[in-house]
């Protein structure tokens, strides 16, 4: 599974890319592989508040509907309309074109609750 360096990861298999006070997020390659063909993505409205590890979006695959959790607390500052129109982008490009949303951070200290690439790789190994 592809686990790019420089990103942070959650136990629920979301990734985050930090850029100043903005956090872009999506689901990991492992997560998209596990879900299989993704057929629907529901994203929150702009400016909605989100809380770390609370549900923020829904992804449906052929087999199941799954919650996506906010990796960090903050306010939604952008959503990827491309994945709503083309949910398969999440399968094809989970870290790039398949990103889901951007959070404007309120509590940077929460980063300590996330894993770096190395730790996430080990986490995947242990949980397979």
């Amino acid at each position, binding site marked *: 599974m592809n686990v790019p360096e420089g990103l942070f990861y959650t136990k629920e298999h979301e990734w985050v890319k930090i850029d100043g006070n903005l956090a872009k997020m999506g689901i990991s390659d492992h997560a998209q592989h596990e879900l*299989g*063909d993704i*057929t*629907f993505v*529901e994203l929150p409205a702009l400016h909605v508040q989100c809380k770390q590890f609370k*549900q923020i979006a*829904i992804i*449906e*695959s*052929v*087999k*199941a*509907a799954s919650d996506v959790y906010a990796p960090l607390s903050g306010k939604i500052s952008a959503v990827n309309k491309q994945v709503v129109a083309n*949910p398969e982008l999440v399968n094809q490009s989970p870290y790039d074109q398949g990103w889901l949303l951007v959070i404007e951070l309120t509590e940077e200290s929460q980063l300590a609750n996330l894993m770096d690439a190395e730790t996430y790789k080990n986490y995947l190994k242990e949980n397979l």
Partner: protein
Amino acid sequence: MENKKTPLFEQHNKLGAKCAPFGGWLMPIQYEGIINEHQWTRNNCAVFDICHMGEFLIQADALSSNLDKILTQNLVGMPLKTCRYGFMLNDNAGIIDDVIIYRIEQNKWMLVVNAATQAADFEHLRKNLARNNVKLENVSNSLAKLDLQGPLSRDVLVAIAGEGILKLDYYAFDYFSVLGENIIISRTGYTGELGFELYVNNDKVIELWNLLLENKKVKPAGLGARDTLRLEVGYPLYGQDINQKTTPLEAGLTSFVDMKKDFIGKTAIEKKQKQGLEKKLCCFQTESRRAPRHDYEIFANNQKIGIVTSGSYSPSLGCGIGMGYLETQITAIGTEIILLLENIKINAKVVKRPFYQKGSLRA
């Protein structure tokens, strides 16, 4: 209890399949992806490992053995080398299983049953069949089953089993010489496409599987695609859409029940017919790509009117589709319903069965 593995388990691993438990078996759910496998079956030809299903051989005179009473189809009138879809019912007309009946000879039958119900089916037969002049044998552990489905399946099979395949009508079968063995091939399936089911001994099934896959028109497909394919044509899945608590009446499957003969459950059906039905199995379609899912609640006019028994995204229609039991007075085509589970709310409409009507089934 550990899940059983079919003789093809290693082949699935080699092909990179994702496997998961189904009916007590570890089965391939998908190889390259459910949607690709679904479309490939609709447009070309796919092979499915269906070894988990059970097969019983019965040597019996239909009437004197009571076999005709155990099944809802009229066995006496069945021509040789044909199959019928029908049910085994309990006294309340609840469905013990949905089965395919094969008439091999005048007094020789094969029943093809679901994996999870196999033991209960066998027990029901053993209990209700006459003792004398009857032989009931469970051959599930030695007989493998492959389904070859899709508009190109006939061409693929002619190359392997000969031109006799061309003579098989819908729901007919015969013996064909394949890999040096005489095997049953029937023109049946669970996808809505032209297709065949092949019954071969376990020790030949790997060879047959690989022989079929040598043809580049054939790809393996898993139970994931099998489920979306069957749902698009409105076929029920035992354990989800039908079970011991539902009858063929509510499920809309009375065309597979012969009311002109006697069978276990008939009295209960007649009683229900008089009383009228409280619920009916209906098909519905969502207005988006969101899918109904098993156990979502169904609402109309702010009242709970049912529950989803099967649901999925439909690769052919590009929207969500599902089936579920609705209160009878709210089942008209076009009725608007809402599907709910926690934070999920989906608008849907009652539609006609089947969802997908362009299948090559009778081609």
